């Protein structure tokens, strides 16, 4: 039983190889695509690629895909908290100029 559950956590090497190659390719793709004029989309493309890369690292290198549901919950709650910090603050910063303030 013990041996069985531990065997479960060993990720095959070809998974690591595939994730590694994807990460390297995306690193150079994101460097190249930053020189292409996509208007306002440049930053979103760069951040989307970064989020995808980070997800690969968390799921496979950090074994969260093979982890317990409690680990998955903890990881997701941490990301949620970071998003609260970023989006609630930025929603203020982004929208301050939208409506004129009377008397100014």
């Amino acid at each position, binding site marked *: 039983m*013990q041996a069985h*559950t*531990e065997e479960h*956590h*060993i*990720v095959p*090497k070809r998974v*690591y190889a595939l994730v*590694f190659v994807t*990460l*390297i390719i995306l*690193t*150079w793709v*994101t*460097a*190249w695509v*930053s*020189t*292409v*004029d*996509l208007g306002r989309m*440049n*930053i979103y493309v*760069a*951040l989307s*690629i*970064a989020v995808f*890369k*980070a997800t690969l*690292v*968390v799921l*496979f*290198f*950090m*074994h969260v895909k093979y*982890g*317990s549901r*409690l*680990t998955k919950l*903890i*990881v997701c*709650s*941490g*990301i949620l*908290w*970071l998003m609260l*910090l*970023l989006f609630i*603050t*930025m929603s203020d*910063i*982004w929208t301050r100029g939208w409506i004129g303030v009377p008397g100014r």
Partner: protein
Amino acid sequence: MASHTSAIEGHGQHEGSHDPNLKHHFENAEQQKETATLGMWAFLLTELMFFGGLFLAYFVYRHWYPVAFIDASNKTDVLVGAINTTVLICSSLTMALGVHYASKGNRKLLVMFLVLTLLLGGIFLGVKGYEYHDKWVHHEIPGEHFECHGCRDAGHASLFFSLYFGMTGLHASHMIIGFGVLLVLIWQAWKGKFTAKWYTPIEIFGLYWHFVDIVWIFLFPLLYLIDRVGKPLL
């Protein structure tokens, strides 16, 4: 001490001989490892919020002073940044393979991949040092002698460089701490401390190392890649 030992033997051991690495307050090795993993993730979440504050500062100032950030961020070298990102991803792979061979109980390959991780981390820090030196030579370190040649909003350009040094410096300090821990782990692995049944410190350190890699995965686009349109890559 004698009663302590008997408590260990009387508890939590359902099969075979006693595993000295299994603490008596855990049911079994699986639960002990799960606890350690969860504890590390709790720590990593505090780290996430720690770096998160700096990322937030970056987004706020980038929104307020876009022109300064465009000109200042073009002072970083994309090629050097991309090479360093590649080096760090390689070190994440060698770390993952280190954990893999630890789980197989292969001492020699574990030590080899930990040493490779150490070397790649060292190369990353070396390249970072080269970049810092370059910034020093060009007076791009915020302070009395700060200069930003060709910047339209040099006053606020120093904000970009404050964040650049703050974020990459905090990241580099994490790598230096990781460097120290790696040295200890390599020594312990060489001494044969870890077995296929118990290699928790390797696994836990792997989580730390990959986390530091993830921070860089976000620092690279934010500090090197945004507002590069029309500039050659090489």
